C-alpha cells in the first residue's frame, strides 16, 4: 500500500511523458479537424474568386481579375443583363440602414420605459418580449404577406415589393430582442445620474436625450451593428416580398446568379459572394468578442 503511494511521486518514464504530452495535443487536433471543413469552404471562396482554375479546391492555378468583372460591367446572361452589382449594393445598404434606424429608435425608446418607469403591466411586457423573441416569426410569413398587401391597397403606398416596407417587417422581428438588450444597458446607468438631470430642470425627453443617450453608446452600438448585419444578410423576407429586379438586394442577386451560373462559373459566384460578405467579415473581426455574447441572445447561462 505504502510503496504504491510512493511510486506516484517517482518521475514518470519517458514513454508516459510522451503519451501525456501527446494526449494534451488531442483536443487541439480534434478542434482543428472539426473546423477544417468550415475553413476550407471560406478558403475556397477566396481562392476561386481570384483565379480561373483551382486545383484541389484551394490552390489557385491561374490568377485572373475576370471573376471581378462585375465591378465595372453588368453581368451578362445571353442577351439580357442582370441588375448591376452597385445598384444591388445600394439597395442592400438602404435596406440594412432602414432596419437599423427603425430598430435603434423603437428599441431604445421602449427599453428606456421598461428600465426606468414603474407602471402596471411592465412585467407582462417583459414576458411578452421573451415570448416574441422565442416565437418563430417565420411561420407568420403568409399572414405578413397579406398585411403588406392590405396596407398597399389601403394606403396606395407600396409596402409589398418595396425595400422599406420589408425593412419595417424585418425591424419588427428584431425589435423585441433589441429592446431587451438595451434595457439591460439602461439598468446599468445609475439612477442618480438621471435624477440630477431632473433636478437641473430636464423633462423626461430631455433627460433621455441629453444625459442618458451619451452613456448608452455601447448598447446602441451593439444593437445597431447587430440589426445592420441582420438586414444586410436578410434573404427569406426579401425573396418572398420583393418581385421587381430593380429592388433586388445582393442576396437576391446572388440567388439569381446561383440559378444560372452554378455549373459554369463558380469564380464569378465566389467573387460576388466575397464582395457581399466583406462588410460582415469586417464587423465580425472587430466585434467578434462582443458578438459572441450577443448573437445567441446575450445568454450568460448556467446561473
Amino acid at each position: 500500500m505504502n510503496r504504491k503511494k510512493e511510486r506516484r511521486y517517482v518521475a514518470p518514464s519517458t514513454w508516459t511523458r510522451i503519451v501525456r504530452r501527446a494526449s494534451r495535443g488531442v483536443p487541439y487536433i480534434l478542434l482543428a479537424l472539426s473546423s477544417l471543413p468550415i475553413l476550407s469552404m471560406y478558403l475556397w471562396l477566396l481562392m476561386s474568386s481570384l483565379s480561373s482554375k483551382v486545383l484541389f479546391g484551394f490552390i489557385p492555378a491561374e490568377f485572373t481579375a475576370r471573376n471581378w468583372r462585375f465591378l465595372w460591367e453588368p453581368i451578362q446572361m445571353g442577351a439580357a443583363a442582370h441588375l448591376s452589382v452597385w445598384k444591388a449594393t445600394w439597395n442592400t445598404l438602404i435596406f440594412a440602414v432602414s432596419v437599423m434606424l427603425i430598430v435603434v429608435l423603437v428599441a431604445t425608446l421602449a427599453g428606456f420605459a421598461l428600465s426606468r418607469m414603474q407602471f402596471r403591466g411592465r412585467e407582462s411586457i417583459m414576458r411578452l418580449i421573451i415570448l416574441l423573441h422565442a416565437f418563430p416569426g417565420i411561420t407568420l410569413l403568409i399572414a405578413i404577406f397579406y398585411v403588406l398587401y392590405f396596407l398597399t391597397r389601403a394606403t396606395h403606398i407600396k409596402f409589398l415589393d418595396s425595400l422599406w416596407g420589408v425593412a419595417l417587417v424585418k425591424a419588427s422581428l428584431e425589435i423585441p430582442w433589441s429592446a431587451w438588450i438595451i434595457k439591460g444597458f439602461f439598468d446599468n446607468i445609475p439612477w442618480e445620474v438621471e435624477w440630477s438631470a431632473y433636478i437641473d430642470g430636464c423633462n423626461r425627453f430631455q433627460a433621455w436625450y441629453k444625459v442618458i443617450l451619451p452613456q448608452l453608446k455601447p448598447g446602441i452600438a451593439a444593437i445597431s451593428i447587430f440589426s445592420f448585419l441582420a438586414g444586410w444578410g436578410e434573404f427569406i423576407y426579401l425573396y418572398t416580398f420583393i418581385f421587381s429586379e430593380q429592388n433586388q438586394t445582393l442576396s437576391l442577386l446572388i440567388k439569381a446568379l446561383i440559378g444560372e451560373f452554378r455549373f459554369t462559373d463558380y469564380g464569378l459566384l465566389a467573387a460576388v459572394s466575397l464582395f457581399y460578405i466583406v462588410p460582415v467579415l469586417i464587423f465580425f473581426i472587430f466585434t467578434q468578442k462582443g458578438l459572441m455574447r450577443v448573437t445567441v441572445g446575450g445568454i450568460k447561462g448556467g446561473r
Partner: protein
Amino acid sequence: MKPKRVWRRKRAIPIRIPPHIPFLLPFAFLVTLFFFVPVVLNILLAFTDMDFAMHWNFVGLKNYFRFFTDRIIPKVLLNTVIYVTATLAINVGLGLVLGILSTYYVPENVGLLFRAIWLLPRMTPPVVYALLWLWVLDPTEYGLLNMLIGQNVNWTMQHPLGVVIIVNGMVGASFGMIIFSAAIKSIPRDYIMAAQVDGASNWQIVRRIIIPLLRWPLMFVTSWQTLSLLTSYEYILLVTDGGPFYKSEVWSLYAYHTAFSHQLYGYGAAIAMVLVIVAIVVTMIMLKIFGFRRLMELAGGG
C-alpha cells in the same frame, strides 16, 4: 368697484397621459402590426380558400380536412421528424463537444479562435453559406466531396435529407457551443481544482462535474433548438428547395411552397397553423419544465 380679476393660468386638461405611453407606442404599434395582427389573420386565412385573386372566401374546415388527406403530408411529417431529431442531435452533441473542448481543454485565446471559426457560418448571410455547400456537394468533379473521394456522386439528389441535416447542423452547433462555453466558464474554479487535487482525470472532471452542471443549459438549448428547427427552412430552401420529389421537404417549407409557389394562401395558412399549434405545445412543455423565471434569466442574460 369690481374686484380686479387675477389672471390665472388655465388648469391643464385633467386627462393625463401616463409617461410611459409615448415611449412604448412605436414598439406596441410594430409588434401589433407584425405579430398580433398576423397571428389573427393566419387563423382567419386558414378558413378561406384564398389564392392569387386574394378573395376572402370562407370555406370552413375544408383546409384542415385537406391537410389530413393530403398525400404528401405523411412524407413531409416523416421528413420533419427525421430532420428535427437528427439536426438536434448534431446541434446539442457537437455543440457540447465543441463547448467543452474549446473551454476546458485549451487555453482561452485558442478556444476563442475556434469558437470564432464556428461562428462564421452563423454570421455569413444564408445565400453565401448555401453557395459554399452547393460547391462542396457539387455533382461534378469540381465539388470538394467528389474531389476527395474521387468519384462523381450527386449528393443533393441522392441524399437530400442527409445534406439538409448536415448543412443545418454546422450552423446550429455554434448556438449550443456558445451557451455551453459560457456556462462552463461560470463554474467556480474551486470545484475543478478540488477534483484535480483528488487526482481526477480530465475525463472524470468532464463526466462528473461539468456535464452535470450543464443540465439547465442543455435543456434550454434542446428546447430552444427544437422550436427553431421545427419552423425554420431558409437553408433547406436554398440548398435543396425540398427536392427532389419532396424528399427533403419539411413541414414549414411545405407551408411556404403551398402559399408562395402554388399561391394557395388559405391552405398554406392552415398548414402553418397546425405547425404553430405544435410549436406552441412544444413551447408549453418547455415552459413547464423550466418555469418562466428560469427561462427569462437564460434567454435574457440580464
